[in-house]
């Protein structure tokens, strides 16, 4: 065990090519998915936050429920659509990074939508009367809210990214964990552990941990400097 750990450290510090290929793909897939999830989730969250309509309560319940989508179920659904016999099979996306990005986007877009809805609704209760006095349009209201909540929304995006990069079920099913093609940190850890290659698994686990902690620390310090300017 101690031996595996020192070997893992060696892999990380020596810049092992296989290791960093896997890390790179992981980041590319999860960052892309986070970006797409924000492009979808933020406008949806903002729109629901400032709108009053019949059935809004049901929409909120649905949004919150979708936050807890099990990754394997999302993976299965995406698989069914992308497989050769599926409706989108002609795209030939199954077992590619694109498929993994799609699956992770579906997984975390509801998280971004639900969390940003809460953040933006709180801000809107503070701004609403002033904005109505200024006769702002819906689009102007939403853009202003998104900008003024920027530091809180960073945390929302981070929550999405954290879930995406740590998730294993969906990318395993739609990516297939193919070496040099769709192998990401989580699927590699699962595989190497089951093969008994604890060194690589530990090394990847270490990197995953550092990424998670690093991104969190960066966002925290950004938020703290924002708070000093009363921008949060």
């Amino acid at each position, binding site marked *: 065990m101690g031996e595996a750990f020192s070997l893992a450290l060696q892999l990380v510090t020596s810049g092992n090519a296989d290791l960093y290929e896997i890390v790179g793909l992981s980041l590319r897939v999860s960052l892309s998915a986070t970006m797409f999830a924000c492009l979808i989730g933020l406008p949806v969250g903002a729109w629901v936050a400032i709108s009053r309509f019949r059935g809004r309560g049901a929409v909120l319940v649905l949004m919150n429920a979708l936050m807890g989508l099990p990754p394997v179920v999302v993976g299965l659904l995406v698989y069914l659509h992308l497989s050769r016999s599926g409706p989108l099979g002609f795209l030939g996306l199954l077992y590619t990074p694109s498929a993994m990005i799609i699956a992770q986007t579906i997984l975390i877009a509801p998280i971004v939508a639900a969390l940003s809805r809460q953040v933006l609704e709180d801000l809107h209760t*503070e*701004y609403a*009367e*002033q904005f*109505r*006095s*200024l*006769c*702002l349009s819906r689009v*102007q209201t939403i853009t*202003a809210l998104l*900008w*003024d909540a920027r530091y809180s929304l960073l945390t929302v995006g981070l929550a999405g990214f954290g879930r995406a990069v740590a998730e294993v079920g969906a990318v395993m099913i739609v990516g297939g964990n193919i070496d040099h093609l769709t192998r990401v940190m989580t699927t590699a850890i699962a595989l190497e552990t089951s093969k008994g290659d604890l060194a690589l698994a530990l090394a990847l686990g270490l990197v995953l941990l550092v990424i998670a902690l690093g991104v969190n620390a960066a966002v925290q310090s950004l938020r703290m400097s924002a708070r000093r*300017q*009363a*921008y*949060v």
Partner: protein
Amino acid sequence: MSSIDTVGFAPQARLAQREANLLPLRVRGLELSCDGTPILRGLDLDLAPHGCTAIMGPNGAGKSLLLKILHGLIAPTSGRIEWGNQSPAQVTKRQALVFQKPVLLRRSVAANIDFVLKARGKPRQSRDALLDHVGLLHKARHPARRLSGGEAQRLALARALATEPEVLLLDEATASLDPASAQAIEAIVRDACASGIRVICVTHDIGQAKRLADDVVFLHGGCVAEHSPACDFFPEPQSSAARDYLNGRLVF
């Protein structure tokens, strides 16, 4: 298309436009109930086209709600409000309301003004002049929410003026400020009034009302208990409610 957007920057031109449109104000039988409790009970009010009107009355008399109704933010339970010959939908955009507690954006002082100028399609160049006018030019890059109470209220005023309102509504704009900050606000309001903007301000500060107002509307029991010129109201109020209020004996 009679909005002020089509009018240039010449004050005289704007003045002519104003007289033709938003004023005088005529309110008839205004009633408002909140959760079944009547707050305004058949309020009548006429305001002349020019000057500064102070709205006074005890806490809870419904002064803030009246301002919001006049501004078009709240729909009354019943009654008619006629801003000149203007349709109610147009009214909000041509007025500005400064709230008791300013709601400032989480941006710099300058960006708070820029935001309104952009939203209203007005040239950005006027920003520095506006900030200078309220004495905040040196704080342009400051975070707006780090301003002191007086500075924040001055920024809120500058933002209101950025919309080039024809009517400026102030809700206890100096209520929590020290005398010097209150004087600074008063000076800006007096300028606005002198430039032809119709000012309607809610205030509890008798000295301020004496300094600023041409006439005083005294609210009590959900109605206008008294509406007289300021020069008559303070020395000899006609209603007993106003008399008690000025002597500090009236409680809601």
